[in-house]
């Protein structure tokens, strides 16, 4: 019954082309709500019963295609549903200005692809059949491509979109190769379940690497991340929120799915995942620090958070390999929880960035400033997201990092020499990532919202309408809820982790710590509230004066020009990491003869060494080579006829000489 409804809903998505312009939004919303209700029902059923659901989806050439939902799929489906729900809610206000500039078809395509991004992601999580999975994977890439190029009238957005599409297909090629190799070796059908046969009899590492690259391109592991910092800024904010919040997690889903079939060589795989994740985590946040484009910065932060998720998973896999259930359970649980957490605060941050963009029409934070007075609610939500993504209590980011820390510290004593070094590397990486994230988000929040206004862009900004704030409230409730009462997520997490580890009951040992955290944070709240109370009573009969900011007694200069900028804030990290971030300064120095200084400019630029060396350089080399071959393309019809004659003559001669 429910599967029929699901099939019917997929069919109903076509109806978007026939409803009037005004009704399209509500049609999509209704469609997605229905999808959310059905799939969440399946997911919750799976998580409570702890056994997979198998539903007959359709029949193709006498092959039955099933939807199989186990605990991992269920978890991902719930995360997808939550973020897609807030995404479509946010889209209402965000897309409003576009209703006048975009025509009917463009809007239809946008909504259609948004709905299909949702459906295809659920299919990716539920299809075990190899071809069906790849088709769903391709649908996901295509629908997100159309979403990215929504503002297609801008030339560089099309360019970015094409770049994204190409990289997604390189990923697809890796996945396809992996499936084909497995198919050729085992001779069975192309599906995930044949992996278990393959991995039992063959070398694990090569195929795993193929899968890792294929899925890693989607997830954005460095060095496969180069599409992320371009696609996210190009897309509208609700799309970036959804893409960064859940779509890149499909890569993680793929890796986890493949891992469920692997039972040998896990130590090397774990170390490999951990290594890649540490690199992604640290470099991701470093790249983020030197960005001035708010959405590009957030995109790099997605890479960082994929790194944290990967650290959790890597540690967990190492734990499985060395039979240490503490490390395994807490590593995996922390990684999984961070998937949910990141989807929450990253979508919150992207929606907040969308608010700012809709008011100021700039993504360059150097042109903003002082917005907290004009957009206090947006400021509040961005601050909340910033604290959560930095992994600070009392929000959810801290909880997932705490789980990973817990596993690593608990596992230290039992580990041998090399293992304890791996764990120490994980600990140091998490600490550094946390510190760098604080560095980055203090910069983001203060440059956008605090201080003086830096340009006229912020002049007409005001608080956005409520429909753009409402989804943020939903997300915030989850962020605060998980942060203050982490105990609620432990049992579901144990159920999911039990896929990898036979006995996940060891997770109960963290219960006293989590209650301790809840108690401490409750106390913190009490202390803060009572201090606020004391302060306000003291201030009742005190004189409070308003003055200008202290500037060593000098008040002549324009305050907006004096204050710290994003570039100067990022300068320390930019200098320290110039090798990878390639921060360059461009300025005209003041000449000695210049008695009265003229107007001078100062600019900083950063690049991404991986993009330069892995993508741009080879592509440019290839392009310049191909340009040389373009001498044949003269545009002269006589030449083309000549080529045809030459071709025929060659074929003729070769046939006579019996070469072909």
């Amino acid at each position: 019954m429910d599967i029929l409804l699901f099939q019917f809903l997929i069919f109903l998505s076509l109806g978007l082309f026939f409803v009037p312009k005004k009704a399209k939004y509500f049609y999509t919303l209704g469609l997605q709500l229905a999808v959310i209700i059905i799939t969440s029902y399946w997911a919750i059923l799976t998580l409570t019963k702890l056994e997979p659901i198998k539903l007959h989806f359709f029949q193709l050439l006498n092959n039955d295609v099933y939807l199989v939902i186990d605990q991992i799929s269920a978890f991902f489906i719930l995360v997808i549903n939550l973020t897609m729900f807030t995404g479509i809610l946010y889209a209402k206000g965000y897309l409003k200005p576009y209703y006048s500039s975009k025509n009917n078809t463009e809007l239809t395509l946008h909504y259609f692809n948004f709905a299909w991004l949702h459906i295809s992601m659920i299919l990716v999580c539920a299809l075990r059949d190899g071809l069906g999975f790849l088709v769903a994977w391709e649908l996901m890439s295509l629908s997100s491509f159309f979403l990215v190029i929504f503002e297609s009238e801008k030339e560089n957005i099309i360019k970015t979109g094409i770049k994204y599409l190409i990289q997604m297909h390189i990923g697809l090629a890796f996945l396809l190769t992996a499936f084909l190799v497995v198919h050729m070796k085992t001779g069975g059908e192309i599906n995930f379940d044949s992996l278990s046969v393959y991995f039992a009899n063959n070398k694990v590492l090569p195929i795993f690497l193929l899968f890792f690259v294929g899925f890693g391109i989607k997830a954005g592991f460095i060095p496969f991340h180069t599409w992320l910092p371009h696609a996210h800024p190009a897309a509208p904010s609700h799309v970036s929120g959804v893409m960064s919040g859940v779509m890149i997690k499909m890569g993680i889903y793929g890796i986890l799915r493949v891992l469920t079939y692997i039972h040998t060589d896990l130590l090397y795989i774990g170390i490999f995942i951990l290594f890649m994740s540490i690199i992604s985590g640290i470099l991701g946040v470093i790249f983020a620090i030197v960005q001035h484009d708010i959405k590009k910065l957030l995109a790099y932060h997605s890479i960082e958070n994929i790194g944290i998720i990967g650290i959790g998973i890597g540690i967990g896999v190492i734990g499985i390999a060395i039979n240490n259930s503490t490390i395994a359970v807490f590593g995996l649980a922390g990684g999984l929880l961070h998937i949910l957490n990141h989807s929450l605060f990253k979508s919150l941050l992207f929606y907040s960035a969308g608010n700012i963009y809709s008011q100021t029409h700039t993504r360059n934070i150097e042109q903003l400033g002082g917005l907290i007075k004009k957009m206090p609610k947006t400021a509040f939500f961005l601050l909340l997201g910033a604290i959560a993504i930095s992994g600070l209590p009392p929000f959810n980011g801290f909880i997932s990092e705490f789980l990973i820390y817990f596993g690593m510290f608990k596992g230290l004593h039992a580990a041998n020499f090399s293992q304890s070094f791996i764990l120490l590397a994980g600990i140091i990486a998490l600490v550094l990532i946390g510190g760098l994230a604080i560095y980055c988000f203090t910069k983001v929040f203060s440059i956008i919202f605090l201080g003086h206004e830096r340009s006229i862009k912020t002049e007409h900004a005001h608080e956005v309408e409520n429909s753009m704030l409402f989804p943020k409230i939903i997300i915030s409730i989850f962020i605060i809820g998980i942060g203050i009462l982490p105990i609620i997520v432990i049992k579901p997490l144990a159920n999911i982790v039990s896929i990898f580890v036979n006995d996940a009951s060891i997770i109960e040992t963290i219960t006293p710590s989590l209650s301790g955290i809840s108690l401490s944070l409750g106390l913190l709240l009490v202390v803060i509230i009572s201090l606020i109370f004391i302060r306000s009573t003291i201030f009742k009969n005190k004189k409070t004066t308003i003055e200008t900011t202290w500037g060593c007694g000098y008040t002549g200069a324009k305050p907006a020009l004096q204050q710290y900028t994003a570039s100067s804030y990022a300068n320390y990290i930019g200098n320290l990491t110039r090798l990878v971030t390639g921060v360059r300064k461009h300025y005209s120095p003041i000449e000695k003869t210049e008695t009265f200084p003229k107007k001078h400019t100062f600019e900083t630029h950063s690049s991404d060494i991986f993009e330069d060396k892995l993508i741009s350089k080879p592509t440019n080399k290839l392009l310049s080579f191909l340009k040389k071959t373009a001498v044949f393309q003269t545009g002269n019809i006589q030449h083309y006829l000549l080529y045809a004659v030459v071709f025929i003559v060659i074929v003729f001669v070769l046939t006579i000489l019996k070469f072909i």
Partner: protein
Amino acid sequence: MIISVILITLISIIFPGIISKTKAKIVGRKGPKVLQVFYDNIRLIKKGSVYSNTTSYIFQIAPIIYFSTILLATLFIPFGNYKALLSFDGDFVLFAYLLALGKFFMIIAAMDTGSSFEGMGANREAYYSLLVEPAFFIIIASVALLTNNTSFFDLFNSMHLDTELSYLITILAIYVFLWIAMVENSRLPVDDPKTHLELTMVHEVMVLDYSGFDLALIQLANGLKFSIYGALIFNFILPVQFSLLYQVLIFISIEIVFALVVGLLESFRARNKMMKNPQWIISLSAIAVIAFFSVLIISGKLILI
């Protein structure tokens, strides 16, 4: 044990006084009273406040959050063989992250003023604290590796029981903690609280625009932070189980010695060049890694022939 919280709070009142008294004596001045900083704070609370017209509510809420996080952090410190009020597995992670939360708010509060000086200070604070953070965690990881425990109380209590060699770790840990305390509290050689040029300050410049009640809260919190680190060092040193009275006496004397050492260090050491600070701070992590290595050798996981 509530007693540790009370003691830490009491010590924090005289701590800055002892430091400045020591420094004054060494250069031959009479110096202010030991309780002078405390009197100053009381006077500040009585005074009115001046706020910059650039600032927002962030600027006003930050000192409260800063003070609250540090006050709450004192509840995590065990007292010899008495458990802390808040003690659970992994409590040191929450301890470190709570301090970071306070710092986060102080940094954005400094940026809230729109002053270039305060931006500079905030930037340095963010940079230095991200560099110093690993050292703390590596030291804790070393002790966790040695004792198979993951809460402050268990870590400190079991580390002296295992082997005599653990004193080696104690010495390294105390050395690193001493310098972490100096960095975290913005003291020499990273930052000089007595400098008179805004350009060269770190912490002092961040609070330039604070006055009255808010400034008092910040200074009380700073004192508290210092005595928290003193209490951690006390827990590292306390060798065997003593009766409560002796523990209190030892605690007070260790805190006073710690304050004297800080005063001495500040009197005989120049401030680093700003550009040299990162290397210097990272070297603390390197020393902490040595501690980690030593534990590996002690526990027989790394065998050197």
